Structures are given as structure tokens and as C-alpha cells.
């Protein structure tokens, strides 16, 4: 393992606490596109958004957790600033973030995240989501009644025709609701895969379910070009079974929950993510999980 070449003085080096596993795979240039008080998004020239985040909770496999960046007024990025991806580090005009030798963040599901899941927990999740979920996205899909939201109805139609990929890029939000929804579905699929074999029920003949077959996955990959950078980034990871920290945390919390209130708390916490992202992802997860456990 070679030592990262020290072009910079020690004050200009930033050591992340976590590095998303996919970040070191990227090389080339990127540009900062949005700057917030606890996150900075950089658009890599491949069309993926890589984020510097302050909190572990905001991690994805394309994020780097660098609290130091957000506490130091001298280390700031502004929209338009360049960032160079060098695998072992990320370089900007004012500082560099060392990636090599730092703790990695996998973002994959493991047995411990799902072992406590059961049919009753799925019901509790649904109940909590209907109560605490944010409207404006695809929460309407959980309810049977038709809505006057054209995006929800379009999604409903897509699901009816078992064409999950028709939801890519669909809906409001800086990450379109459909992309969050699909991420939730993929999360459900991965959850089922990890559950002990006797749990999943046979679901042949259940017309309401949406099963991403291998064929559908191919269609989903092909559909990536139909959405924006944020949606693409999310789905690119989810299709590789890499999920955002907040969703993995939700799974873990519900798995560990001993009382209904704890499930409700886990849901409340997840739906705080973004505007409707959390709600949409959980909606997708639920619609997949219903009737399968």
C-alpha cells in the first residue's frame, strides 16, 4: 500500500471518517453543484453525484463523511469549484480529502439488519407510514383510492402493468419520487433474499405484487438515462444492492424493535429524509413486502 503523495501541507489535508466504497473507483473531474450546511454535492463527469457529508446518517456508497470540512470556515466549496478524483484522494483548489487507508462504508444489507423482520412488522410499518408519511410524492400508492395527482396515477398504471421501469424519472422532487420508490422496491428484494428461507411466502398468483425479475433489472439499468443525476446516482447504487444509510438504519431499527412505538419511531426518522424521498422509498419497500412475508 503506497503512501498518498503529500502535495499539500498538513493543514490542507482532510481525513474522512468514512469513505463510501464506490468513491475510490471514480477518476477524473467533477464540479461542485450544490452546497448546504451539512452536505456538498459534486457532479462527477460520468454523471454521478458524489457527496461530502457531515453526518454518518447521510452516507451512501458515493459519499465521503468529512465532518472537519463543515466545521472549518476556511475549507469551503462553492458551486462551480472543481474537484479531481484520484482514487486515493479527492483534490480541490484549497484542500484534499484522503481516501486511502480510511474506513470504508459498504452500504450493503447484512443478516443483522433484517433478522427481526416479520409479517406483523410489515403491517406496523404500513400503519406508521400512512400516519407519518409525507404527501406530495407517491404515498398515495399505498391507498386504494384514486387520487387527483397525475404522477401518482401514472405510477399506479405502471405498477399495474408490472412495468416498474416506467417509474424511473417520474414525479416531483430533486430526486424524482419514482426513483426513490424503486430504491425501496430493490431494498425489499434484498431484504427478502437475506431473510431465513422459511419466511417468504409463495406469492405466485398474487396480482398486486411487483417482482423485479432479472429481465426487469436489465430494463431498469437501461432506464437510468431517463432520469436526472440525483435519480441516476441513487438507482445506480441500488441496482448494485447498495443502499443509503438512512434506509439501512430503518431496517435495523425495525428489526430490533420490541414494541410498535419503536417501529413508528423508525418510520418517523426515515421520512424526515429529504422532502418525500424517505416516504417514497418506504412506500416502494412496503408495496414489495406486502403479501410476501
Amino acid at each position, binding site marked *: 500500500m503506497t503512501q498518498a503523495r503529500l502535495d499539500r501541507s498538513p493543514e490542507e489535508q482532510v481525513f474522512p471518517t468514512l469513505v463510501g466504497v464506490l468513491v475510490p473507483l471514480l477518476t477524473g473531474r467533477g464540479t461542485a453543484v450544490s452546497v448546504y450546511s451539512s452536505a456538498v454535492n459534486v457532479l462527477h463527469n460520468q454523471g454521478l453525484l458524489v457527496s461530502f457529508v457531515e453526518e454518518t446518517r447521510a452516507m451512501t456508497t458515493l459519499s465521503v463523511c468529512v465532518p472537519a470540512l463543515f466545521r472549518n470556515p476556511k475549507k469551503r466549496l462553492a458551486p462551480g469549484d472543481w474537484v479531481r478524483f484520484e482514487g486515493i484522494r479527492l483534490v480541490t483548489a484549497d484542500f484534499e480529502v484522503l481516501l486511502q487507508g480510511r474506513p470504508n462504508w459498504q452500504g450493503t444489507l447484512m443478516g443483522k439488519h433484517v433478522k427481526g423482520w416479520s409479517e406483523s412488522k410489515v403491517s406496523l410499518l404500513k400503519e406508521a407510514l400512512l400516519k407519518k408519511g409525507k404527501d406530495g410524492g407517491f404515498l398515495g400508492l399505498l391507498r386504494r383510492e384514486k387520487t387527483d395527482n397525475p404522477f401518482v396515477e401514472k405510477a399506479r398504471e405502471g405498477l399495474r402493468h408490472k412495468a416498474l421501469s416506467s417509474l*424511473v424519472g417520474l414525479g*416531483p*422532487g430533486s430526486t424524482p419520487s419514482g426513483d426513490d420508490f424503486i430504491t425501496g422496491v430493490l431494498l425489499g428484494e434484498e431484504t427478502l433474499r437475506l431473510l431465513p428461507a422459511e419466511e417468504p411466502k409463495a406469492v405466485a398468483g398474487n396480482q398486486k405484487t411487483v417482482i423485479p425479475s432479472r429481465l426487469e433489472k436489465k430494463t431498469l439499468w437501461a432506464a437510468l438515462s431517463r*432520469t436526472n443525476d440525483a435519480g441516476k446516482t441513487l438507482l445506480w447504487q441500488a441496482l448494485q444492492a447498495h443502499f443509503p444509510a438512512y434506509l439501512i438504519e430503518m431496517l435495523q431499527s425495525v428489526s430490533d424493535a420490541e414494541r410498535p412505538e419503536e417501529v413508528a419511531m423508525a418510520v418517523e426518522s426515515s421520512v424526515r429524509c429529504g422532502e418525500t424521498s424517505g416516504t417514497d422509498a418506504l412506500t416502494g419497500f412496503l408495496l414489495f413486502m406486502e403479501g410476501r412475508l
Partner: protein
Amino acid sequence: MKKILVRKNAYYDSVFLMLASKAIKQHPGIKEAAVVMGTDVNLELLKGIGLFSGEAASAKPNDLVIALEGETPEALEEACRIAEETLKKKSQRGGEEEAYRPVSLEGALKIIPEANLVIISVPGLYAAREARGALHKGLHVMLFSDHVSVEDEVDLKERATEKGLLMMGPDCGTAIINGKPLCFANVVRRGAIGLAAASGSGLQEVTCCIDRMGGGISQALGTGGRDLQEPRLRGRMMLMGIEALKHDPETRVIVVLSKPPAEESAATVLSRLEQTGKPCVVHFLGLKPMERRGAVWFSGNMEETAAMAVALSRGETCGRSNSFAPDKDLLERAEAEAGHMSRSQRYLRGLFAGGTLALEALSLFEQEGFKIRSNMAKEPGQALQSPHRSEGNTLLDLGDDVFTLGKPHPMIDPSLREERIAQEAADPETALLLMDVVLGYGAHEDPCGPLAESVSKAKAWMAERGGYLSVVASITGTDSDFQNKAEQKKKLESVGCLVMPSNYQAALQAVHIMKQVVQRWM
């Protein structure tokens, strides 16, 4: 009717988009609205529901599309305007702000939690709201903005007095706190004289005179122009300022400066001053000074205010001085200046950048029996038909709205005054130009450079026609101001301008030149 807006490569947060969407949807007269990324499937859908147009066709997934359907073209236009403006903001409410340059006070306080003063100079329409926010957070306020309503000012000052905070303004252009010049202010010596003033350029003039005379400033607080004049305000901020100066151990002399106050406010201020236990000097511009009351002295002009304050701060005897009675030199200069003029030259043209400086000059001329027209005139008989055309003796505050709407203030940009100088020079009846020059922070970096050029040209024109244009000026500034006062003075003197040590002395010199002029054509 429908309208589609497309914002290319939009990187906005979802929370923000949601708020923008809500704001647009709730706008009266909007039937339908969608705020979505321009993905194919979203565009298809918009087409399907009839919210589509040519612009939308070219939208890409990373573009933001705002589709609106309004009941009337006006509602649509308004909603579109709101959408555009809201999107110009780079962040949104709900806790996340741009770390780099905060867009809200909350965000700013995260970065600088020990903040103690907010300086506000946003357009008047929004200024009161910002000031309220600052006071609410327990911060002192300097409100530079004008065009704030009296109602808002009353409300702000009530809140401020309740919380014991400074609410300097609105229309407060100058303050010096802890020796630091704020907004338009000069670098002055630190010392024992504390000031509370309802006047920006007045505060500058007095503090600069104090500095010139060897005295120093502890604190110089602004109250906003209306504080003593508007009865509803009851001089609140002036009273707060006086009280604070009373308790300030650094302050040994208190100076109060204002345009003529409303009666009740004057009475309260004077009694409060008497209770401070410290010697005070009061100057109400344009009013004849009253007799001393206890330790409260009254001065006749701004330079005298400074002189009395400095004397008091040194424990010297202080009286209304005669040192500014016309001396021999002043009278000789007056004769010399007038002597070169042609018979047609009869009138004064005063062109001022500082409102209070203009007022002082105007008052002096009137006291000396001249009839002066002005854009500051209180009586209709002294108003101008058009402020852009001088009539007889004319003295103008070029910082007035009528001149500055859409243009920079003459203290910042000399071109406004340059144009007027040329105009006056072309008038064969112009005898004398009287002007002020203000240095210090906020002012032009070289006000006398362009001014000297204009003066030179003006004098040349007048000379061509067989006359002589007299130009008198004063420079409000200190030797520590970045413009280099000595050099500024040299520039003006090199083109034949008489530069006097104070605004009052310049006005006095001008008075005597004009007296000579009047004598000549009588």
C-alpha cells in the same frame, strides 16, 4: 392560460422545490402547477395533462420544469415572477442554508454565534422585517436603509427599547462604535466625547472637527433622521443613546445633534441631558442656540459644537466663541473673489452631497438675510419650480431622492454633481459655487480628483465670457481617512478653489463673498 419555465441544470434541494411549488400553487389565480425535473416521463405526463409547451420540449432530465396554468394572464405573470425570484435563491428554509454565504440570519448566527450587531442596507421594503428579525435575536441594529415607514420605525424602536438594544435608524448612515467606523464614517481619534446624532453627515462633520481640534470620540451613535422630529417616535433612540453615554465610563462629554426637534421630544431630551451629570453640548440645526442650562450648553453651528465639546473634555472654560466671527482674511478673500466677477454674475449655487451640511449652509445664509431657494425648502416661497433648474440663489441637497433615484449617491459617485457644476457654469448669473466634500469609508476614493477637473473647466468657461467663478468648499474628513485629506485639499486649491477648514467656515466665507457681490450690483 399556460406558461412553462425551464431552468437548466438545476440543483435545488427537494425541500426547497416543495416550498416553491406550494408558493406557486397557492398563488391566487393559479389553477394548476407542477414543479418537476425534466425527465421524459415527467414531460410526457405534463403533455398528457395539457401543461406543456415548446420550451418544455427541449428540457432535459437535469433541468427543472415549472408548468403553470393560470386563470388570468396577470396571475400567470405574477406567479412566474415569483417562481423565477424564488429559484434565484440558492437554498431553502427548513434548516439547510448555504454554508458559504448564509442567506438567513439563523444561518449567519450558526457561523458567528457571538454576533452583536447587524448592519442592514437592503431595500426599504424589506429592511424593517430584517431589523425585526435581528432585534428578535437580541442583536443591536444599525439600519442604513431609508424608505422605511414611520409605523415600522415606531414598532422597531418600541421593540428595541423593550429589549434594551440599539436601533440606529432607519436612514442612519453613520456611527462609530468602539472606535470602529460603520457605513459612511471617518477614522477619528478615540477619546472622551460621546455623540448621539439624528444626522449622518452632521455626525461626520462634528466628529471630524473634534479630531482636527485634538479631541477624541468614545462612541458616536446614530438615531435615524426622524427620531426627534416625528412626534410618534418621542426621541426614543436619542434618549437610549444619552442614557448609554451617561453610564459609559469612557464618555466625559455628551454631544447631541439633530434637526429642529418636535417640542415634546426636545423637552424630554434636554431634561434627560441635565440628569446625566456630565457636561453636554446640544446643537439643533438651523435654530438659534439657547442659553446654557446647568451643564448643558447650546452651540450655533457644527464646528462650534466640536469646539465646545473639546474644551469641556479638557476641563476648560467653554463659551459661545466669537472665534468664527468674520476675520480680516475672510473679508479680504471675499473682496478679492467678488472683484473679478462680471456684472451679470449675481447668484449663489450651493451643491451639497451631505444633507446636514447643506442645511447648515442654508441656515446661515438665511440668518444673514439672503433669500435662498432649495429642494430642502420648508416654505413654498422658497421651493424651486424644478430642482433641476436653479433659480436665483439656489442651494441643493443632491443626496435627495429627486436626484438619486436610480443613480448612486453623490458621496459615492461625483458624476451627478459634475453635471450640475457644468450646468451652473453655463449660466452667466452664477457667481459662486459652494460645495462639500466628504471623505472616509463609504465615500468615493478620490472625490477631489474629478471635482477639481469640473471646477477647472467651469472656471475656464466663465473666464471665457469675461467673468470669474468663485468656488468655495470644505472637506469633511480626517488625516487618517484613506483618501489622504491633504492631497485632496491640494487638488482643489490647485484649480483656484477656496478650501475652508469646516463646513460652517466655508458657508461663512461664501456669505461674505455674496455680500460683496450684492453690493457690487446694487
